[in-house]
């Protein structure tokens, strides 16, 4: 398993999230994202736990893109991954965002 | 040790009257000052539907026999390589036959029969789950083998290399075969040694048997299963 944490600058989420939410299921080529309130308003903290080793650069690119596309400041995302492709990761992150924006 | 020699050691010569037919054991024996019903499997039995029904019938007979008197304890002797593996047994619902055995064990417990298991030989997976593992107190004879699956088969299913599994088996009680591992996790109450006085240990085990399931707490106390008890508590208290 490989684990790392990124703190990415992002505009604050328009409203506070009421409760934690979870998206996705940990299965081969898939991942789960747990969304919770974070520590700082203008950054998004993302903890990645993945079974695929050596893809940190790609993770950083996908996560930076996500933090730039959405206002996710003030969120803490925790990811359990079983080797999802970047496309699946992006999709799941967008779903997680929609869950807490709804 | 032959089967008769093991019975002699467990109950004393002349202290038992147990018939062995095929893979099935049934009779009675003396434990301390108590007469107990003995029900078991032998010769590393693969438990199929008919054998499960013989076990269940013997339990029901024991409950019926003591309907109007003090319920005698039941001693299970478990020696099983697991469930029978066949399309026929699956078709008829072997899981349902095992569930029936479990209901019979539960009926005996509710009727006040104390339940003991002695593992002699092997206790594997579904065959162990069906009856031996449901007793109030579970004792393993020296050299008893207890497991879900051997490491080679486990390597095939999990696609983790055998070398890695063997390396981890030395340090982790959680998946590796062995009675000692089950003891640490609370799944087996006692492991006896060759030097022990087995009749004394049997009598003591019977005296300490209770009808509550304390295995998670024992696993916590012995340090082999640290999360089961607190997690169940967390949910129960939520």
């Amino acid at each position, binding site marked *: 398993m490989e684990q790392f944490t990124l703190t990415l600058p992002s505009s604050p989420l328009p409203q506070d999230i009421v409760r934690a939410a979870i998206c996705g299921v940990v299965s081969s080529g898939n991942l789960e994202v747990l969304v*919770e309130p974070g520590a700082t308003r203008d950054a998004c903290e993302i903890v990645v736990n993945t*079974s695929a080793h050596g893809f940190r650069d790609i993770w950083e690119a996908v996560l930076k893109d996500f933090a730039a596309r959405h206002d996710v400041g003030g969120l803490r995302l925790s990811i*359990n991954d079983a080797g999802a492709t970047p496309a699946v990761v992006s999709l799941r992150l967008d779903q997680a965002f929609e869950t807490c924006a709804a | 040790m032959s089967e008769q020699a093991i019975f002699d050691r467990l109950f004393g010569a002349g202290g038992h009257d147990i018939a062995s037919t095929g893979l099935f054991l049934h009779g009675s024996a003396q434990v301390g000052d108590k007469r107990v019903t003995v029900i078991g499997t032998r010769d590393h039995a693969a438990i199929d539907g008919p054998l499960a029904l013989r076990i269940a019938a013997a339990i029901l007979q024991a409950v019926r026999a003591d309907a109007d008197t003090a319920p005698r304890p039941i001693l299970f002797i478990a020696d099983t390589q697991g469930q029978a*593996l066949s399309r026929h047994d699956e078709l008829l619902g072997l899981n349902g036959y*095992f569930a029936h055995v479990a209901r019979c064990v539960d009926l005996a417990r509710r009727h006040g029969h104390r339940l003991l298991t002695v593992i002699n030989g092997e206790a594997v997976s579904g065959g162990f789950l069906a009856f031996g593992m449901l007793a109030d107190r579970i004792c393993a004879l020296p050299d008893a083998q207890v497991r879900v699956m051997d490491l080679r088969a486990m390597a095939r299913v999990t696609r983790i290399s055998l070398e890695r599994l063997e390396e981890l088996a030395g340090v982790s009680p*959680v998946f590796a075969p062995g009675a000692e591992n089950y003891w640490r*996790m609370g799944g087996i109450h006692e492991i006896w040694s060759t030097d022990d006085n087995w009749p004394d240990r049997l009598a003591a085990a019977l005296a300490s048997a209770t009808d509550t399931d304390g295995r998670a707490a024992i696993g916590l106390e012995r340090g082999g*299963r640290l999360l089961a008890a607190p997690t169940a508590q967390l*949910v129960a208290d939520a």
Partner: protein
Amino acid sequence: MNGRRISYFEASARMRLSGLVDADSFSEFCPPELRQTSPHLAQLGAPQAFDDGVVVGRAKLAGHAVLVAAQEGRFIGGSVGEVHGAKIRGLLDKALVKRPAAVLLLADSGGVRLHEANAGLIAISEIMRAVLRVQAAGIPVFALVGGSCGAFGGMGIVTRLCAEVVMSEQGRLGLSGPEVIETVRGVEEFDSRDRALVWRVTGGKLRRTLGEATRLVDDLIPAFRAAAADLIARYQAHPLAPASLVALLDEQARLAARSERFAGARDGREIWQAAGFADASRVPELSVAEFNLHLGETS
């Protein structure tokens, strides 16, 4: 209820739960944010899940209080490890205190999790005892089986301990999976890639015909909900009595008769033929309504 036709088989554990119980009534115990994860997976290089593959909590179903557990078949085959098993066991312990109308077990599991095999086996034994204890106290446990992993291994035994077993045709129920039998006994004994055969030996229609499943429903979440609601109403009217010696002697006779009658059987067609289906080979094609109508006419 919404009219969307949501496949129970395709849905995740959380989707099944949210469609099964009354809207907004579900409250989760030991939720993902508590991170009560398996400590044993990482050492074998397997990813963990924040809920360890099972969702437990309280809810209402048709207004009645229920406790629910839903296994996630897509996470390591819905397998039972130390934490996963303890969550179900804790839920059953809670049932003794809270006395809900029923406990619903949405089983979707191949059985013991091999990565933590010993803990999993003991956990299943603990669940078995807890189910028996809860039902002896008059609280029925219903098993719902319609997920991709079915209910196998120890969870197959647990399922059959439950007062009611609701299945879809897609659901499968057994002890040893076809792959295990094929690996040990050879492809001639059980060809696990012959999907039609696998379903004729383990599937919902076969289990319902034998009486192993007590209801067969369509592969839709609302169909499972309707069956569970109906069963709750029935147990409210006629509370569960603890299994008696007489009842177990009856079951003993029933199972003995099954073993004798079908001593050489190896295919569901033989069971369907004996159950009076005119063309046993066509049973898999019958709709659930047609199938249930036939059982109602002959049983």
